[in-house]
């Protein structure tokens, strides 16, 4: 699904956020523009209404004295008008407003806004109107749309309290100026030009917003693609690696960004993976190699034997050869399995208390025939030392070390085994007086299948020390080797006592 792609999701979020911002901006701009236009209209309406109100008294009918600003409408006290009589009757004669010529121009039908006015008596009847005025004023229930700006309010301060009423309906707006003593002027106009202008503004804003949105989406796509590209590199490399090419690395010029650091971490993981894999491969290849030789012996020997009739003695010899090869394979397989189990942590070590000195003595007894055969003396300098662990496994390690020490010793050589307690660890040292191990071989003696003499004549398969080390490690101990050419080699095993 496309919506599962990070890029698409980023893009959708970009788009939504951009849309919200643009919409907010557009609506605000539109509202400001509308407010501005309406404000202008409103102050215009107010101005005209005030003008009307001010022009009322000089043009008032006879009998009216200029008693004040609001005098013309103030004069008739409430209740003075009969229910059926229009107030203008009370004012004597048709209460016509006499507008100055410039005032009349204010309500000219030729104006695009088509300003008009209506004059109401205190009982709500229309007493006078401009020629272009509609039949009815807008209901006062219609929405009050605007409070005039403060500077306009100042203009109204000349008058008494003016409840200001703006009503808007369709494209009409009206301002109602109530006189304190009843009656009111309603000045209105058409909003058509403003609404048209506003519509143009809206169209322009929408078009501009759309363009910006498109640009933003394009830019967002580009940015997202740019941001995603390292991820795609990583993904491509990872798929190559999962396809088996472990040598692949993510190439990133920028190593400081978050993705760069991720790539660095991944690269080092891949490197470790590769080396672990190579090690595993080496191990498998070594194991196969070790198994190949005895298989070759069996194959060759049996094919030779079966190629013609043989004497019983020859058949016996063939069988003996095959047996030797098979035993060698068995030893190797056992060692490989032991290592595999130790590696997998499946080999559980017993946690029992045992005396290290007893175990060492038993091992020494075990290798005594070999030592005698090689004319090597095994010397024990051990004291009772209680250890916790798997005594059989420890014995296996010690037997292996002792066998090696005897095997690689010189005739009339010595093997010294000593124990001591050091910082809560039992330290066992097995020293021989052999030829020693070459310095370049020393770091590799614990490597699997590593044999310093690189041949099979010693009878070992190169796993003994690896197994020893694995056993000691499983006990939480360590194993070290030191050697001096011509003097001898010493293996040191440290086992935690507790």
């Amino acid at each position, binding site marked *: 699904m496309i919506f599962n792609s990070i890029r698409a999701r980023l893009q959708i979020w970009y788009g939504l956020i951009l849309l919200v911002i643009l919409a907010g901006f557009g609506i605000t701009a539109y509202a400001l523009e509308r407010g501005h236009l309406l404000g202008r209209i409103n102050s215009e309406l107010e101005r005209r209404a005030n003008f009307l109100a001010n022009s009322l008294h000089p043009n008032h009918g006879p009998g009216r004295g200029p008693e004040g600003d609001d005098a013309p409408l103030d004069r008739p006290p409430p209740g003075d008008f009969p229910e059926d009589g229009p107030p203008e009757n009370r004012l004597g004669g048709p209460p016509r407003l006499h507008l100055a010529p410039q005032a009349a121009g204010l309500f000219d039908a030729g104006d695009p806004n088509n300003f008009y006015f209506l004059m109401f008596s205190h009982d709500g009847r229309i007493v006078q109107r401009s020629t272009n005025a509609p039949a009815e004023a807008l209901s006062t229930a219609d929405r009050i749309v605007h409070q005039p700006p403060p500077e306009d309010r100042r203009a109204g301060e000349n008058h008494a309290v003016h409840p200001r009423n703006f009503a808007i309906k369709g494209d009409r707006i009206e301002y109602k100026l109530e006189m304190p003593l009843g009656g009111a002027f309603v000045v209105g106009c058409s909003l058509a030009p403003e609404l048209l202008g506003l519509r143009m503004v809206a169209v322009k804003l929408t078009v501009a917003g759309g363009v910006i949105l498109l640009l933003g989406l394009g830019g967002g796509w580009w940015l997202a693609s740019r941001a995603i590209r390292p991820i795609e590199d990583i993904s491509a490399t990872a798929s190559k690696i999962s396809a088996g090419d472990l040598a692949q690395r993510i190439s990133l010029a920028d190593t400081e960004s978050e993705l760069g650091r991720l790539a660095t971490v991944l690269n080092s993981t891949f490197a470790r993976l590769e080396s672990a894999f190579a090690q595993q491969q080496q191990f498998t*290849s070594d194991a*196969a*190699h*070790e198994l*190949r*030789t005895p*298989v*070759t*012996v069996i*194959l*060759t*020997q049996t*094919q*030779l034997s079966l*190629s*013609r009739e043989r004497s019983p003695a020859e058949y016996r010899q063939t069988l003996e*050869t095959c047996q*030797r*090869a098979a035993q060698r394979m068995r030893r190797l397989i056992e060692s490989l399995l032991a290592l595999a189990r130790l590696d997998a942590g499946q080999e559980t070590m017993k946690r029992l208390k045992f005396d290290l000195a007893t175990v060492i003595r038993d091992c020494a007894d075990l290798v005594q025939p070999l030592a005698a055969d090689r004319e090597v003396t095994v010397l024990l300098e051990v004291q009772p030392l209680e250890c916790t662990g798997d005594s059989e496994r420890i014995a296996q390690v010690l037997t292996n070390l002792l066998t090696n020490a005897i095997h690689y010793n010189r005739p009339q050589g010595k093997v010294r085994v000593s124990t001591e307690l050091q910082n809560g660890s039992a330290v066992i040292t097995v020293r021989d007086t052999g030829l020693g191990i070459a310095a370049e071989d020393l770091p590799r003696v614990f490597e699997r299948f590593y044999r310093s*003499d*690189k*041949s*099979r*004549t010693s009878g070992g398969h190169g796993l003994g020390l690896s197994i020893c080390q694995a056993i000691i490690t499983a006990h939480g101990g360590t194993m070290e080797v030191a050697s001096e050419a011509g003097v001898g080699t010493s293996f040191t095993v440290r086992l935690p006592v507790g």
Partner: protein
Amino acid sequence: MRLLIVEDEPDLLASMAQALREEGYAVDTAAEGEDGLFKAESVDYDAIILDVMLPQMDGWTVLKNLRRAKKTPVLMLTARDQSRDRVKGLDTGADDYVVKPFDLPELFARLRALIRRSANRTTNQLEIGRVVIDTAARTVTLDTKPVEITAREYALLEYLALHRGEVVTRATLYEHLFGDDDDTLSNLLDVHVSNLRKKLGHEFISTRRGHGYCIE
């Protein structure tokens, strides 16, 4: 044909040597690289089977040192079957490469091919007049009739046939037909030559007095 086997696994060495002897080759053995190199340099073997993993001096070193002095065909024997090992072996001067474990018949076939190539031949059939020698089947026919022949006689015949037209000295024949372990009576060669003449015709092998034998 005289071969040298250099292999450190004693059981394998013994069985290979026995198998090749039963195939009619004279076989020398060495269990170490240095010993192998010494023998390879001092005797003109028809082919050498050389194990790669040897104590002290490994097979690569033996091969490198040998190639300075001799062109003896060398068949490398190894448990390593990775491509880079094979490439290394062939580049170092090995003529063939056999991976353990191998089948004896394949080893024999590769040895025959190796020896055939070193004698600049392309088939296993050697035709000399009425006599046809099949080096793969190790059989000899005279006028398409099979001839009963012993392994040693065959080896002598094959060697002379491979060096047809050349005079082969008695010393060379001794060197190529008898291994270090063979009891070589001085007149054994004459007995074999005489037997071959009885079976294939007196003129088939000519004697160059004081030099050696020759198949024209």
